């Protein structure tokens, strides 16, 4: 039997249903798992996406694009293939894609996590024959602490900064992580948090979707000699080390990312503090999910696929890495990585 989903130059492709999943080049029909830039790209003719994430997809793909919203669990036919979207617990409106054809069920996980997250619908286990799973943190060293515990650490750091007369600048991804931090911190405070310009719109879209978060205000709205001491600011990683940071001096910097679990990453990126808060599955969650889906064949993609393939094989599960161009959680500063796919060109000749 032919594979229901194959990698191509455009992205993951379902030949039987003639559509792509999260294509990285323009195609006719695109099913989108979530609104992160490496999954939701503009230029395709028609899109399908989960209804709760519709506003985020519009923000990313463009308001003129034709996007068909699907409720979680709602079935649509692409020729002989039945497709439905199921919660992935990654960010607001994130989805796994279930494909059924001639009695075979495949699931493409997109990005997912199993930890509690007040900003999105929890992950749903979808039984399947073949599971295409993300593997961003596919190594046994990655296990997340309770998000509430990490939020407590962030809050403590903020209070320490306040005591020392410092501004606390927390770097985090603008879509998903920022909103999760704002929601988690509600356990500890009701103070206003100040946002970098790249985040204000996305935070508003989350609020419009009914997600409860700390009060926020745009950094740009504040008067010229505003006193930043003791304030918490959220900014994307790319803003770190730029002249934009100067006006907040003296400050302490933090980074909320799963990569902060490892000391080397923390030290290399020269943030004062690292908080291992991730929207991706940790190692125990990856294993648990693979087991719970009952999949007989597992195809890990983007990230540390090799260890996960190794583990599956040790368990007697058929597994092979699937080569795609998704980034997962970018490990390096967005500033250094930029958006291009291959920032280092081969020299001429």
């Amino acid at each position: 039997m032919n594979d229901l989903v194959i990698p191509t130059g455009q992205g993951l492709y379902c030949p039987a249903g003639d559509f792509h999943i999260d294509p990285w080049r323009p195609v006719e029909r695109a099913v989108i798992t979530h609104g992160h830039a490496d999954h939701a790209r503009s230029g395709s003719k028609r899109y399908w996406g989960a209804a709760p994430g519709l506003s985020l997809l519009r923000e990313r793909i463009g308001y003129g694009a034709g996007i068909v919203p699907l409720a979680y669990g709602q079935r649509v036919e692409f020729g002989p293939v039945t497709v439905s979207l199921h919660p992935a617990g990654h960010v607001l409106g994130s989805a796994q894609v279930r494909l059924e054809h001639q009695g075979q069920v495949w699931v493409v996980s997109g990005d997912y996590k199993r930890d509690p997250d007040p900003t999105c619908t929890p992950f749903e286990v979808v039984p399947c024959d073949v599971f295409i799973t993300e593997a961003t943190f596919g190594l046994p060293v990655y296990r997340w602490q309770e998000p509430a515990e990490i939020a407590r650490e962030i809050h403590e750091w903020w209070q320490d900064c306040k005591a020392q007369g410092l501004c606390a600048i927390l770097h985090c991804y603008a879509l998903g992580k920022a909103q999760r931090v704002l929601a988690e911190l509600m356990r500890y405070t009701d103070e206003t948090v100040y946002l970098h310009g790249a985040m204000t719109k996305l935070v508003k879209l989350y609020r419009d979707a009914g997600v409860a978060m700390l009060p926020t205000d745009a950094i740009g709205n504040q008067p010229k000699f505003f006193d930043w001491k003791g304030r918490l600011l959220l900014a994307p990683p790319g803003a770190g080390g730029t002249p934009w940071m100067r006006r907040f001096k003296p400050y302490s910097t933090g980074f909320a990312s799963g990569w902060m679990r490892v000391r080397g990453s923390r030290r290399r990126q020269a943030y004062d503090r690292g908080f291992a808060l991730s929207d991706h599955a940790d190692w125990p969650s990856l294993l648990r999910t693979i087991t719970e889906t009952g999949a007989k064949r597992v195809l890990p993609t983007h990230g540390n696929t090799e260890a996960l393939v190794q583990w599956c094989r040790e368990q007697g599960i058929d597994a092979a890495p699937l080569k795609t161009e998704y980034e997962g959680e970018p490990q390096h500063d967005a500033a250094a990585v930029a958006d291009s796919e291959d920032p280092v060109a081969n020299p001429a000749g």
Partner: protein
Amino acid sequence: MRQFAALYAQLDATTSTSAKLAAMQRYFADAPPADAAWGLYFLLGHRLKRVIPPTRLRDWISQLTGLSPALVEDSYAHVGDLAETVALLLDARLDRIAPDQASAPPLHECVALLQSLAGADPDLQRDTVFAWWQQLPFEQCFLFTKLLTGALRVGVSAGLAARALAAQSGVDVAVMQHRLMGEWQPSAAAFTALQAVAPAQQSPSQPYPFCLAQPLDDAAPDAVGPADAFLAEWKWDGIRGQLIRREGQCWLWSRGEELLNGRFPEIEAAAASLPDGCVLDGEVLAWKDGAVAPFALLQTRIGRKAPGKKTLADAPLIFMPYDLLELDGVDLRAQPLQQRRSALAALCDRSAFTPSPTIDAQNWDALRAQREQARQRGVEGLMLKRRDSVYGAGRKAGLWWKWKVDALTIDCVLVYAQAGHGRRSNLYTDYTLAVWSGDALVPVAKAYSGLTDADLVAMDRWIRAHTLEKFGPVRSVEPLQVFEIAFEGIQASPRHKAGVALRFPRIARWRQDKPAAEADTLDNVRALIGR
């Protein structure tokens, strides 16, 4: 252990020098002296001898976690630090016994226990380590395993630790630095003695802190003053050392405060000709036929204790002094260099040593001309020391300058990459570079430094996308990227595949403009030998 782990975490969590100083001061004040002594010992960069080989630790962590050796290996390659890998893997086990914060013993007991494990029965070693691994909280588990592997390094310089202790105890920084030199056995008594305001009895083996030089700006050397204010010497390519003659014995210390006694018997024999109460600063050099021999020859002696007759004949060594720090038991460091030099000359006249010659040059042009000859003479360049300079502790601005000869360079092709360690863990930063020999690429150098962080990240992504094969932690890559490699010298070497060995190779430039086919050939490289 808990307090030291907390200090370690605080030092790790900040890049601010003042915050580090404050954290160390608090630790010295709060920790019991027996623990603080060991804490200080590690802060100064001293290590314990390795108790258990890393391969055995990897086997054990595999047994304890139930992870296959391959998964442990992948994890280690990703994290880049064995102790951290162990701590993370244990922390990721869901069935782990809830760690009791209070149960970890004090640091000095922990060290004693580790030392008692060395050479113990392997089963006892294993059971003890397992018990600790299971009960220690994350930070302490990490430190405990670091101590086991003998690889504990704390992210502060010895100088900063000395400053913190000096501030805490009210002792002058230079005095504290001197007290901390050489060998001392950590104990509560030793720690208390270090903090005593009155000078304590010092061991005769104790060296002085080394005075260090700054690199001179090649573009405008005369910016530092008139040439005749400086005394010029050759910058030798050997091992900097301090030779101490006191109480009828001698000690030879390296700049890294390693005691070199027993390795260089000819130097110890010569030291017997020195009067008691005298300390020389100088260079250990391989010396043949009245001239310095390449560093490679000295290198054959470094690791060898109690060398035999043949070794001594093949690679004869000398100690060439260039400063006199103590004479007749009197500390001369506060005297101007000119006076110390005269005293050194007089001392050499009545002992078996020859001082490093001074170079006669009246102006900067003459000095530059001398420097041009450095490579032919087998030296690294010039040392310029102010004639009126005291012998300072550490790198004192404006007193001593090193003016090195320009490095040699070649263009090489990247052929292998390996992930780095520490802050470069999980980044492919360690490069093997090759030159052309016909149609084949022959590796000539390994380089670990020279690129900016942004370049390293960009290259890491390129390497991952252009990997040909993986050999454990090493990847072979498509031979497309060209780097200009700078190095200090080149020697013919039968031990290397390319037949040459480069001294201090590092990346000078990333030649993104250059196709691989235009990189240097092995013939070009060999032609540099003896230049």
